[in-house]
């Protein structure tokens, strides 16, 4: 998999962010595994510590496995003002996990993030690439229910 991704890019350091995105997007557990880091650093002639350093700087990347669905809730001031704390609490309760954690069945990860850029519909969240706005705890429950009906646990899709 890595080879296919790497070949699409010129081996210059400025392509690192793109490559990391693509590796992560192709990883069912939505993270960048150690092997990925090794291959990227070889390809771009960077040290693994530098690649790791870059990954851990940006909040969209992860070095540890995450759920099939990453629930990103914004808690920046506009969303905060419009009640994001109750949304986070609700998510935490119905998913049974805290911020930064992944459910045991590998379905959901919960992340509290900075601005998603959809402040006009605050409070907002993003599940993988889908956006949801004007959230209320009830809406959140419905949304998560819909995702839950996708009964197939993430890991089975993965391997």
């Amino acid at each position, binding site marked *: 998999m890595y080879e296919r991704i790497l070949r699409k890019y010129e081996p*210059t*350091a*400025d*392509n*690192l*962010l*793109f490559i*990391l*995105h693509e590796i992560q997007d192709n990883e069912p557990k939505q993270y960048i595994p150690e092997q990925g880091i090794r291959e990227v650093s070889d390809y*771009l002639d960077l040290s693994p510590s530098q690649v790791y*350093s*870059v990954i851990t*700087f*940006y*909040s*969209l*990347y992860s070095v540890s496995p995450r759920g099939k669905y990453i629930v990103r809730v914004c*808690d*920046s*001031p*506009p*969303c*905060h*003002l*419009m009640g994001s*704390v109750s949304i*986070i609490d609700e998510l935490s309760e119905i998913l049974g996990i805290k*911020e930064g954690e992944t459910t045991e069945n590998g379905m959901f990860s919960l992340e*509290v*993030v*900075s*601005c*998603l*850029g*959809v*402040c*006009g*519909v*605050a409070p907002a969240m*993003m599940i993988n*690439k*889908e*956006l*949801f*706005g*004007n959230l209320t705890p009830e809406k959140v429950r419905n949304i998560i229910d819909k995702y839950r009906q996708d009964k197939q646990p993430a890991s089975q899709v993965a391997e």
Partner: protein
Amino acid sequence: MPNKIYNKHVLISIDSSTLLAGARQVEKKLVETLKKEKLSESIKVIETGSLGLSDQGVVLVVYPEGVHYVHVTEKDVEEIVRKHLKEGEIVDRLLLEREPEVSTVSYTEDEFELEKQARIVLKNCGIINPEDIDEYIALEGYSALGRVLADMKPQDVIGEMKKSELRGRGGAGFPLWFKWNAVKNEPETPKYIVCNADEGEPGTFKDRLILEGDPHRIIEAMIIAGYVTGSHHGYIYIRGEYELSINRMERAISQAYKYNLLGENIFESDFSFDLQVKKGAGSYVCGEETALLESLEGKRATPRHKPPFPTEKGLWWKPTIINNVETLANVPDIILNGGNWFRGYGTEQSAGTKVYTILGHLTYPGLIEVEMGTTLRDIIYKYGGGISTGRQFKAALIGGAAGAFLDETALDIRLSYEDLGEYDAVLGSGAILVMDESACMIDILGSTMRFFQHESCGQCSPCRVGYQQLTLYVDKIAQGKGEMKDLDDMLELASFMNGSAICALGQSAYLSVSSILRYFRKEFEEHITDKKCKAGICSMSENTEKIAMRG
């Protein structure tokens, strides 16, 4: 091939928020229904960017009537097609409740003449299909570039920019011509043109809507910048969260290449320019120009020490222009209409228009473009429809999280670089977060400080540790354990950060803390002496711990 004549056009707004309301499903249903009703030949469905209505679900606009339908669902499509498009009878129950203001991105029939409106940046947003270069070209798109390449010397373009007095819309408000001129005069090559589309300022999404609604405008402006400065490479750095913007921009770039508007010998001139999208990965500090350069180079986005400035040593330490999306969006029209035309808009020191994202407790949160100098009161009550909750206005945070808090005494302030300066506030990113009485200023300051302690790049300790300490102060007050001297200590700490942090992220602590204490000191004092949060938000006990620890 002559263009087909249609009787009616139906615009469907496709942006991040309408997509999440189901715009694609509605569109599909609409096309199917038109086919079924045999209307496909006479009615054209056009995908367009944002219409600036954030809270209105899927939005359709029917032309030539200019009727806005909002909150449209799949179920409503048949009714619209049968009643309105076939019979000409408007479906009242789906109509937009208010008359859109002149300056919101929307239009009514008689406002089709753009000159009447204060719309420069957003003039095509919501009007053209952003995925079709021909529609941009049809509305004079790329004619500014044509004119520049055919008739203008770089110095002429800089002259017009200087006359226009266009200043950067990203936050710092630096004159555009100055940067362009500096890079033009740099002997070192290669030079680079970078568009800063890493819009991370909380409450701001104007750049997203410009990128989604009118991507070619940015491309055109960047090519012009390249021509003026002798640069042949450009990068548009878009934050990773903006999937749709990235897709639209990439598509626009490939179309521009096809039309030879990018690449070798543009318009058969001897000028060549290449443009590429770069994708961020979730970091607010990338909006700081030197941090953005680091990120473009594939590194951690830690701001550089200035000087040297990017115009001298920028991307890969070569001369580089970095302009914000909104700033660039002004360029083509300045070329077409002249710098003096642009200068005709706005106030003494702030020419042109400004795009704001207005949100919070507002009836119509969304995106507006108004002339520089429009008062805060007009923005809130005229364009934003006033306070949505029926409560009293309490505060506005202007310029995003890195902005200043103002109270009702500032409502009549004209929003311009110079007027805000008098209030020690800044235009910043143009985000205006409006709060009614239900908001607690301690809570909102806490949210702001936590935002910054999370987004600090971590390289300099004044910022990294400073925000953590400021957060502790706010939490302490929210827990009912504050002391009066904490307020002065916070101010002193914030003022230290203003002087000692490497970049604006750390320095802006002062703006937040000093402005909130200037206008809302009483509320802080109440929390401290009476141990009471009138808004009932602060726990006044240790329970806030959970929130406090959150990034």
